[in-house]
């Protein structure tokens, strides 16, 4: 039963030169959009380590939006092409572990494209809202009996190591 009050928490990784400025521009132009995306500024979308994306999900985000300069317009020549490749891999990885691939999105937005960015955010928020919470941290919480079993195994291992030593 989907929760009607569910507000997805989406982490944004925005490049300093195009997309962060697109967000500035969307603000200056008072474009109304969903306040669900919480933005981290990076110098280039190429800085977005896939670990950050996985960490965001692991720490409880329901979606991740990466935004950068258009291909061919990167402030650092062509680093967003690396982002593009990593994005494909990330999508693949997420799919493989059973996470809906719409939870990650890549949006090119130049400093002049506040409107495109705002629209993309609204679309993504709506879609993730439909998908519901990811609840990743919760899913990794093992039931008490499993925790118990792991503790026992660990103790046995330690004991075995002591014996061999």
């Amino acid at each position: 039963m989907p929760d009607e009050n569910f507000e997805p928490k989406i982490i944004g990784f925005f490049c300093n030169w195009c997309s962060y400025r697109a967000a500035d521009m969307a603000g200056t132009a008072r474009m109304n959009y969903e306040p669900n995306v919480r933005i981290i500024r990076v110098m280039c979308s190429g800085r977005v380590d896939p670990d950050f994306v996985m960490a965001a999900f692991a720490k409880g985000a329901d979606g991740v939006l990466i935004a950068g300069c258009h291909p061919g317009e990167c402030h650092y020549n062509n680093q967003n092409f690396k982002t593009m490749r990593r994005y494909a891999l990330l999508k693949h990885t997420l799919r493989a572990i059973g996470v809906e691939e719409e939870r990650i999105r890549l949006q090119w937005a130049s400093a002049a494209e506040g409107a495109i960015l705002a629209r993309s955010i609204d679309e993504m928020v709506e879609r993730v809202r439909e998908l519901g919470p990811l609840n990743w941290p919760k899913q990794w919480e093992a039931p008490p009996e499993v925790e118990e079993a792991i503790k026992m195994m660990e103790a046995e291992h330690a004991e075995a190591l002591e014996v061999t030593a």
Partner: protein
Amino acid sequence: MSERIGIYVCHCGSNIAGVVDVEEVARWAGENIEDVVIARDYKFMCSSLGQELIEEDIRKEGLTRVVVGACSPHLHEKTFRRACANAGLNPYFFQMASLREQIAWVTKDRERATKKAKSLIAAAAERVALHAELEPFTVPVNPATLVVGGGIAGIQASLELAEAGYPVYLVEREPSIGGHMAQFDKTFPTLDCAACILTPRMSEAEAHENITLLSYSEVEEVSGFVGSFKVKVRKNARYVVEEDCTGCGICTEKCPTSVVDDVFEAGIGYRKAIYRPFPQAVPKYPVIDTESCLYFNTGKCRICEKVCPTEAIDFEQQDELIELEVGNIILATGYETFDATRITQYGYGRLPNVFTSLEFERLCNAAGPTEGKLVLRDGVTEPKSIGIIHCVGSRDVHYNPGCSAICCMSALKFGHLAIEKSEADVTSFYIDMRPIAKGYEEFYDRLMEEGMHFVRGRVAEVTDVALAPEEEGKLIVQVEDTLLGKQRRVPVDMVVLMVGLEPRPDARDVALRFGISCSMNGWFTERHPKLDPVATMTDGIFIAGTCQGAKDIPDSVAQGAAAAARVLSMITRGHVQIEPIVAEINPEQCSGCRICNELCPFNAIDYIEADAVSEINTALCKGCGTCVAACPAGAITGAHFSNQQIMAELDGLLFDVNEHDETMQPEPTAA
């Protein structure tokens, strides 16, 4: 040792406080975020009182980290860093959260806005605690400047800098400087002859001891950064030895090959294969166009060589690659006119007597192909009536939504010239008349008095299909006269299309080469549209004139001078501070896999064979962080954007991750 963090939440008048509950955010931050010793909200943090508040807290309360939640860091990061530095705190122990642009201005929901504000403040606080002490790099500024583009804006910028005593390299792609202005006959609204006011500036630029003019040349490569750019310029072979050429012009006169001049004469005049674009060209040396030159195509002719009295022709001449070192760069690469064949219903290219505004300029020009005679395409017939169509390719969602800014005034100028030079009846078909600058409205009034006609409406079609006897042999302008509220067919002999201004087709490549950005349609983007119109996001690179957007001559000249003033302030200061945001490799952790080597767009990473590790040359590193993200060993640290800092930011942003679950499944309070 734990940090002592101060949090400041700005009201920005009612800009932020109108949507975000700033008192609540400050209260919450003070009570919930670790190591926060002070959390305040204040009306205007950027005011001097706001800054003093921070400085006083650093001094009295011993703050070691500062967070300000206010506008975008692109606006006031520098302000608050300075405040920190004033109080003796390293300016990089500061972090800003954009509560205004990212929250208050884009949402109306107070509750959600306040929550987002908390998350941004928490992220900034988590991150700032991990900030490292950094010092900006100070680099010297080379006093030489590169100006790209020798139109009026580039010339103006060059002269300003040269007059101040600093060396300038002025690079122009065409054989002569002068740009579009050199093609014009008169300039509005004063009707100064364009050549009379431009050519003195051109020769001044050429003769100036501080200006090195590189015409028929293009910038191929740019590297380095503000203060010390390295630039590679290709000086195309002219096949004329400049040192020997006197510019006598005999070669041009005797050259047997004539071709249509698509550039300077806008396609309505001819030039020779060895040519100077126009008589007052600067420099005076001609160039050989190898595509049309008989010798280059057939191996025979060499007439120019034979007639040259100083033996200045050199068919073996090669392109020259020149390396320049400059501190700053001004781009003044200009515009292109809209291709009128794209609007097929106006018939350009199909109906001979439809002209573009640039063609009309050349027709009117006394130095043009008709020596200033206003004639139809046949070269003899004088038009008895002329229709001028405004906004061709401008203010049109199909082509360019924006206004080209100069066409209304050009059209009025054409009206005046046509009335002065001929008996023709001139009608302007306009959407809105926009004579917006000083003296422009007066010029409009003058043209109404001179008898120019005005029809308000966007022209639907220009056709030669006559529906009435008086339309026979004429061009018919079909238009809805929006003031009369009816369709009209206006027969004329000549139609002039006021083609709009567009960015250069290669503007994107140029932007990429110089590391600046373009708008959607290709105009170069300024740092701030109002307060920083000639600077770009890239330090040391400035823009002037129409490469930034459509504008007229006075505005282009003003921007040229403004860009020069910006450069001068850099030169006279002598040094510039750059952000210490660079990457560094820890050799202990580096496995020497060399993945990063290939990723770096600036070739800043070298593999040191002897130590089997990679090393970053910080002078070349621009801090994009791609290598940091790619290093499988985590051996690379990006200053100010380290993995730890970004992970901490994530923790802050997701501070409320468990709140939602609690509302969904309330846990029993008693154990």
